[in-house]
């Protein structure tokens, strides 16, 4: 056994390597990015020939992982919570086909929205797809759960969701790793007679019935899970259900000596037996869970239930991540006084790096659009979203990856002119290309600005599949070569760049402007 200081993300990755993983597929997204980065940097993974390349988006990654599982090998797909919206079609239907080699779907939620546009809770998706969900409470559990999840997946022939949260993903702790590693599975696709991967209605119905019939077994598995634990306590005025890392906050608040009965929950569906025991023996039940009130709402039911305490009853805030202080407060424990924030402290929002190419693009855009009072600029997700803040105040929307082009098109359909879309290279190949195809079909009067900085900047500089090939891709999709323009966003090119934007904004048809200069952060990394 060896000790390592690992992030939750890294512990899970090492656990998967040690458990015989054959391939990981992922699209970057905070806080899940470090899982793939760990595989890419790992000598173990390299030695064992584990597939570890980024995918173009989460749906693609999900299906690639399912393909590896089909072939009989152990696979993992990783994404941030909103990535699962993109991957949802493949995800939900992978539960209907079932798996062959073990398949872990790792989804990292971001309660408090540190780097995200919402606080959605992936446990709802696991419940929706009717598959088991594991939620580690510590880095060690993240490590240990990888092998357990693969075994469970192969036993139940279902994908297993691994739900992480920012605080576990991005926190390091000492992790004990196993002395020996499991062999990878050999190539063994299902035999031709099993048609379960062919979701024609007749087969899908049979599969779905089988999935429904499995649910009792999944509850039994949760009841027997080494990661779910009933810890009795003398003070039964309140019992506590703690999900995932909330367990640590509870222990911290009570100094490791919680007087109440506790159900530590790290595997779903809910373990009926332990839950019934807690409900029967305690007057009320407090639910501590990071993310949305998933368990709490189930226990409350639609009519409410005064016995169930938590985010919905007001003991805890409805939104935002938990912490030891909030948990202590919910139990009215004594707390040290906390001084008020000094009025001297000002908000310090993130900003574009000095020398960032996006700065020059926004400066040119701002000047060009002075001639177009009615212009609307539809933004997208990436470093360039920071163009929404002063001094640029340059974009009027940022919704989800790819929505710049499609919203600009919809707005143009409604009569907005000029409608400009701003999208990064990675976001364009993630979800922008399909929308552009619609705009080509109708020759929509929009101008799409692709900011090609050669990388996925926002998430720390991962390779992006289409970098440097933006013009070819757009031409291939059908954008007229005459209206595919390129410029280098540098101060010395300012006047030329302004002119290019002006011309294309004035053109009443589809145009694409590619602003191409490398991210200064990746450039710096390469030079090191």
């Amino acid at each position, binding site marked *: 056994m060896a000790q390592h200081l690992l992030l939750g993300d890294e512990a899970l990755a090492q656990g998967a390597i040690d458990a015989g993983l054959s391939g990981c597929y992922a699209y970057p997204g905070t806080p899940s990015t470090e899982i793939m980065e760990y595989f890419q940097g790992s000598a173990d993974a390299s030695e064992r020939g584990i597939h570890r390349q980024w995918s173009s988006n989460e749906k693609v990654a999900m299906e690639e992982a399912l393909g590896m599982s089909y072939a009989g090998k152990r696979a993992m797909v990783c994404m941030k919570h909103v990535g699962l919206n993109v991957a949802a079609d493949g995800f939900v239907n992978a539960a209907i086909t079932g798996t062959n080699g073990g398949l872990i779907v790792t989804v990292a939620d971001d309660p408090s929205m540190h780097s995200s546009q919402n606080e959605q809770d992936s446990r709802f998706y696991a419940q929706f797809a009717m598959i088991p969900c594991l939620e580690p409470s510590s880095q060690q559990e993240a490590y240990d759960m990888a092998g357990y999840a693969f075994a469970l997946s192969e036993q139940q022939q279902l994908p297993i969701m691994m739900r992480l949260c920012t605080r576990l993903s991005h926190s390091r702790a000492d992790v004990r790793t196993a002395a020996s590693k499991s062999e990878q599975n050999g190539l063994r696709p299902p035999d031709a007679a099993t048609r379960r991967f062919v979701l024609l209605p007749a087969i899908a119905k049979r599969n779905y019935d089988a999935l429904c019939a499995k649910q009792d077994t999944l509850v039994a598995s949760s009841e027997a899970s080494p990661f779910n634990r009933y810890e009795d306590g003398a003070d039964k005025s309140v019992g506590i259900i703690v999900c995932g890392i909330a367990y640590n906050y509870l222990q911290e608040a009570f100094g490791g000596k919680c007087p109440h009965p506790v159900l530590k929950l790290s595997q779903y569906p809910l373990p009926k037996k332990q839950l019934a025991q807690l409900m029967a023996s305690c007057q009320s039940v407090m639910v501590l869970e990071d993310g949305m009130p998933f368990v709490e709402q189930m226990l409350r039911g639609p009519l409410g239930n005064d016995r169930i305490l938590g985010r919905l009853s007001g003991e805890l805030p409805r939104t935002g991540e938990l912490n030891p202080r909030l948990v202590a407060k919910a139990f009215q424990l004594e707390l*040290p006084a906390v001084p008020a924030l000094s009025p001297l*402290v000002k908000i310090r929002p993130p900003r574009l790096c000095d020398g960032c190419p996006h700065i020059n693009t926004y400066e040119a855009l701002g000047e060009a659009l002075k001639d177009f009072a009615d212009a609307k600029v539809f933004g997208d997700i990436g470093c360039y979203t920071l163009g929404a803040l002063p001094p640029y105040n340059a974009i009027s929307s940022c919704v989800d990856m790819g929505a710049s082009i499609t919203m600009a098109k919809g707005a143009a359909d409604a009569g907005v002119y000029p409608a400009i879309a701003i999208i990064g290279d990675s976001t364009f190949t993630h979800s922008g290309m399909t929308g552009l195809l619609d705009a080509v079909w109708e020759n929509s009067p929009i101008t799409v600005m692709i900011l090609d900085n050669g990388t996925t900047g926002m998430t720390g500089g991962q390779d992006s599949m289409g970098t440097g090939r933006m013009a070819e891709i757009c031409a291939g999709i059908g954008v007229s070569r005459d209206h595919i323009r390129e410029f280098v966003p540098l101060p010395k090119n300012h006047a030329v760049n302004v002119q290019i934007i002006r011309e294309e904004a004035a053109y009443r048809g589809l145009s694409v402007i590619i602003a191409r200069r490398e991210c200064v952060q990746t450039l710096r990394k390469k030079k090191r």
Partner: protein
Amino acid sequence: MKHDIVLAGVGGQGILTIAAIIGEAAVRQGLHVKQSEVHGMAQRGGAVLAHLRLSSEPIHSDLIAAGGADVVLAVEPMEALRQAESLSPRGVILANARPVRNIGDYPELDDILAALRAFPLNVVIDAEQMAQDAGNARAMNMVMLGAVSPFLEFPDDLLATTISDTFARKGPEVIAVNLKAFAAGREAGLAVKR
């Protein structure tokens, strides 16, 4: 033994280097470690923080409860003040006095420094100048690490050895500058600890 340390700064200043060295030293001591970091959005020049917990006993929470930190260590003065709510009444606050003025309404520096010096236990130093004197302004982090070292119960040479190992790949000159910066910071910390 238990140390709960809140590290603060501005994205890009490299507070994780400090955390990594202390964490590594703690592991070498056989201590339990939990270190919660900020990755992502805020790293683009925003306010960043990390929680570092070291203990001879197993550690429960990855986060330090507000009002519970033994140390607030900041590489930027306004960020030190932002994290002051974490500090326990008996704790020490350490700050680099050099501001990062990347916002329009940055307050009067003197007011911030005065507020920091009003804490019963404080070390407020121009770590950047001290690092420059040691040979490279970029060793500012090592000055701050030196300043906090007297407040951590580590054997005398442990942090210095860990620094040497951390920078081993960069050659003896880099190591020497970083150790010199560390020593200068340590003097400043000792002056307050005594």
